[in-house]
């Protein structure tokens, strides 16, 4: 127990150092605005992939409707700041809670399904959320909600990201988290052992949805606009791809996946016509040669590298 605490403090220190370095690089404009934007985007994508990993990787429930919760967060956050004129901090909290609540309401009936059927249901629900938003005039309908203040910066994304990573890491190591892992390994066996599978599945789904909402608030408050076209099922696929690429059920994997894919997109930004083609070929080739993802379900561990400090934070922003 003591050991874990010590490791956590070490990790936190590592995060501080990493944060200080990155912040200085941004302040002295060694990292230009283009890469600053991409670093923020990487941070947001890390929150998304880590939260989806809780549902898909750790609990084994195949959800591909994450963009829907992202949209809910983005829009409720924007309503709080733009329409009601309340502070950004409140927007973050409300966005998170709303997405979580919706996740709970959606999770309760749909999580009875399994495998491909759950995947399709979540995909459909994600689209329904988007189409509903598209038809609400109050939030701008098809033209999107504009004029959102830029409140998100590197510091916000970094610390919220660290919070989410730690939250999910600790959740997985807690009793409910272990129940989730048991459900992933074998749902019927888990049920036989007395685990209330519905409860823990819904719990994981709600937490994952809530953090997607957080990412949504950060997203809309960085890009000035919340637009329905940013939340299509393509976006859900994007997040899913990050998780699978890194390795389902691996925290370091989810983080690496987010960094890698966002990075590839950014590097290819200069060749817009080739960008998606190369992206898709990378995806196919990686899956052909490493179908279990880069990390499998293993973690990048201290024992592997003897680096000290925090792995998750390091992989998060260090690349």
């Amino acid at each position, binding site marked *: 127990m003591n050991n874990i605490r010590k490791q956590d403090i070490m990790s936190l220190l590592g995060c501080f150092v990493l944060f200080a370095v990155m912040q200085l690089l941004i302040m002295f404009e060694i990292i230009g605005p283009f890469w600053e934007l991409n670093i923020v985007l990487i941070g947001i994508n890390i929150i998304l992939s880590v939260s989806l990993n809780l549902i898909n990787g750790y609990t084994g429930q195949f959800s591909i409707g994450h963009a829907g919760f992202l949209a809910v967060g983005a829009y409720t956050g924007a309503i709080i700041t733009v329409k009601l004129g309340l502070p950004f901090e409140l927007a973050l909290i409300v966005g998170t809670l709303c997405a979580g609540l919706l996740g709970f309401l959606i999770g309760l009936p749909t999580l009875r399904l399994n495998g491909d059927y759950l995947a399709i249901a979540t995909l459909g629900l994600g689209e329904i959320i988007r189409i509903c938003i598209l*038809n609400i005039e109050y939030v701008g309908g098809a033209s999107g909600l504009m004029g959102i203040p830029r409140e998100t910066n590197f510091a916000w994304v970094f610390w919220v990201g660290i919070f989410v990573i730690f939250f999910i890491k600790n959740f997985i190591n807690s009793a409910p988290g272990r129940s989730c892992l048991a459900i992933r390994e074998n749902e019927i066996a888990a049920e036989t052992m007395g685990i209330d599978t519905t409860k823990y599945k819904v719990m994981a789904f709600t937490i994952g949805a809530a953090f997607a909402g957080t990412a949504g608030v950060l997203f809309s408050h960085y890009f000035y606009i919340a637009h329905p076209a940013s939340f299509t099922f393509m976006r859900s696929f994007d997040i899913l791809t990050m998780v699978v690429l890194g390795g389902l059920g691996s925290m370091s994997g989810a983080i690496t996946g987010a960094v890698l894919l966002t990075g590839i997109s950014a590097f290819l930004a200069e060749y817009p016509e080739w960008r*998606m083609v190369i992206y898709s070929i990378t995806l196919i080739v990686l899956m052909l040669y490493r179908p279990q*993802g880069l990390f499998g379900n293993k973690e990048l561990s201290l024992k592997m590298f003897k680096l000290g400090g925090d792995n998750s934070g390091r992989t998060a922003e260090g690349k």
Partner: protein
Amino acid sequence: MDMGSFLHQFVQQLINGVSLGSIYALIALGYTMIYGIIKLINFAHGDIYMLGAYFGFVATTMLGLSFLPALVFAMAAAAVAGIVIERVAYRPMRNAPRIAILITAIGVSFFLEYGMILIATPQPRTFPAVFDATVYNVAGLVINSQQIVILGSALVLMAALTYIVNHTKAGKAMRAVSFDMDAAQLMGINIDKVISMTFALGSSLAAAAGVLVSIYYNSIDPLMGMMPGMKAFVAAVLGGIGIIPGAMLGGIIMGVVEAMVSGFFSSTFRDAAAFGILILILLYKPSGLLGKNIREKV
């Protein structure tokens, strides 16, 4: 709205819905066959439909073919594309985790879409009118000759497919593989060949749908396959995925519901209705309208 005009509107939307639905049914058939055989949700299937439309475009504009030869050309070319995709991207993954194959399918889908943008630019192109559109007025109902051609071609193709699956040796092999792959292999069926054939058949149907739609709407673009692909998939699930008559039924129902929603409410809610049906069917009868409930064994 009084009863008479309501009824009139209803029948009109029914006609529109059935012709749109037959397109969904053609695409859904490919989804359902491929799922039935290798349990893969082939997300790239909607893009095969797009590919078919472009092949049709090439056939009519560059090769100067008329409707039927162009349709056959597009179907054949798409069949080859389907076989190649399966051979290159899916076959090496056959024993990989399901989710990895799914991601590969998403990758293939992106590749086809953006590859096409690279070749043909993202601008929509005008599909030539291969035959004149005559509008018939039957008892106040508007029926377009193109709708008749779409429905007719779709019916012929579906009948042909049903015949192939139920009455030929190849079809028997397909059914056997979809029932139990290992047992089929032990009986001496060449699995690879059967899977290739399934992809060829499914892709050619999607291509036919692509050509028919392009004739109807006069316009094609590289991303045209995304939404119809998704909806056809919903149609396949609605009818019971893996079941061929189910895909046809599901497609027609989807088309009719969509036409009704756009006719009576608002066309912006059309897509939501499609996915709404999906959620309802999944919650109450996840095996689909024509599916059987299979009890999970421990």
